[in-house]
């Protein structure tokens, strides 16, 4: 086989493409959203990893980062936004609150974990997680998409 020909199946190419061009959804809920903005800001610059553009509409994006406390009032909206996203779609649950209720787990208005509302691919721990942790989660998700170890 000549060196200049790349042999791959369409499926592999699709997986590779999806992983390297995740478009996140601008969706800040609470404190963790500020760290998400830092990750996207000048110092951490997560556009380096191909997940460049934060989209403002769920229909344009394929990655939802749930960054913050999910309250009972907000949970139905999160589900609705998730349903509006186009397939394939992935969810990162950022921080203690989104993963398990965090410091507010004893509160009467807080859902303990966004995984009760939408399926989650990667959990990030911390309160708030540092931007590095969020970037690690993104890399993890990308690796899993490329190697085909995701839900879909």
């Amino acid at each position, binding site marked *: 086989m000549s060196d200049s020909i790349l042999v791959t199946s369409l499926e592999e190419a699709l997986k590779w493409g999806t992983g390297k061009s995740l478009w996140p959804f601008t969706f800040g809920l609470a*404190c963790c959203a500020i760290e998400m903005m830092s990750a996207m800001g000048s110092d951490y610059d997560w556009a380096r990893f191909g997940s460049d553009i934060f989209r403002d509409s769920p229909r344009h994006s394929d990655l939802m980062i749930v960054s913050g406390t999910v309250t009972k009032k907000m949970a139905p909206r999160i589900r609705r936004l998730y349903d509006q996203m186009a397939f394939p779609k992935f969810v990162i649950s950022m921080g203690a609150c989104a993963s398990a209720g965090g410091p*507010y787990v004893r*509160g009467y208005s807080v859902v303990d974990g966004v995984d009760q509302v939408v399926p989650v691919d990667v959990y990030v721990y911390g309160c708030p997680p540092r931007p590095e942790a969020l970037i690690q989660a993104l890399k993890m998700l990308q690796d899993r998409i490329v190697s085909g170890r995701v839900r879909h």
Partner: protein
Amino acid sequence: MEDKVIEVNFGPQHPSTHGVLRIKVKLDGEIIVDAQPVIGYLHRNAEKLAEMGGYPKGMIYIDRLDYVAALNMELGYVLAVESLMDVQVPERAQWIRMMMVELNREASHLIWLGTHGLDMGMLTPFFYCFRERERILRIFDEITGSRLLYNYFAIGGVYSDITPKAMDMIREWTEDFIPKLEEIQSILGKSYIYVSRTKGVGVLTREDVLSYGVTGPMQRASGINRDVRKDSPYLYYDKINFDVPTRTEGDVYARFLVRIEEMRQSARIVRQILDKLPAGDHYNKKYSKPMLVRLKATGEAYVPTESPKGEFGIHLIGDGSSIPYRVRIRSPSFANLSSIPTMLKGYKIADLTAAVSSIDPVFGEVDR
């Protein structure tokens, strides 16, 4: 065609709501005839949870109220607890607190400036502001060990002393910050589009401000010269020189100028504190950690402080046990947000994001 008022829903998911605000807007063509804010999407029962642990444990919920200015929130709580229990705080600790609070005010205003730029359709200020903010966060990281939520102020002092390395970082920061701020200000202030989209938009008159209880930069942009740091000084604000910037226009542009000037004044305060910082203990030895859990108090205390958003107050009631009977939070963003109907009525729908982002609401604090 007959006149028809249509209702448009703004939020709770919208890039310009700064969190989870929903506004029900009634439109006649392009003109806003009514706007009603709907809040509660981030109601995390901070008050009730703070009443469940002991006095020191309440701090973590107070921290997460205004999460972009966590130290300002902590200060209000810690001062309230200290005034309730008559705790003596060493002089050095008070100066450190003051410096940290002013640095955090800068960080908070920088976030506001960056996101306000985004709302006005400009991406550059966002990156410039975050570059500057990261420098402050690195200082915080060095001193407190975390970037966003610190839990740094303790009853009777602060948890850790300022290291010489941190002192150097702060000194270096005070030297380069003002030219950078000027650069950021000129991006927005010299832009014809920005100025024409903000001048005369979202006007709140002096009377509106007084009747809604609006405080902070919004109030000072409407011609009321009131700042808790000046009017009833806490910590050592009476030993420091700083000005309270005011404007009389009451529009979005005036709020922008007031906040920029406040950042200059905060840098000035930090510079003075660096020269004045006395030697000594950074916490009161009587209140070292094992004792904290057993702190008991009776009585009431209300301490107002000037947070970046306005007057932030904590009202504490102790019933003699080690758990506070009531922690009432006076949150400035909540009062500021209630002025939305007046601020938006009669303007175009395109002015909505400019006006809303000029409030600088933070929903941890609005919904509590």
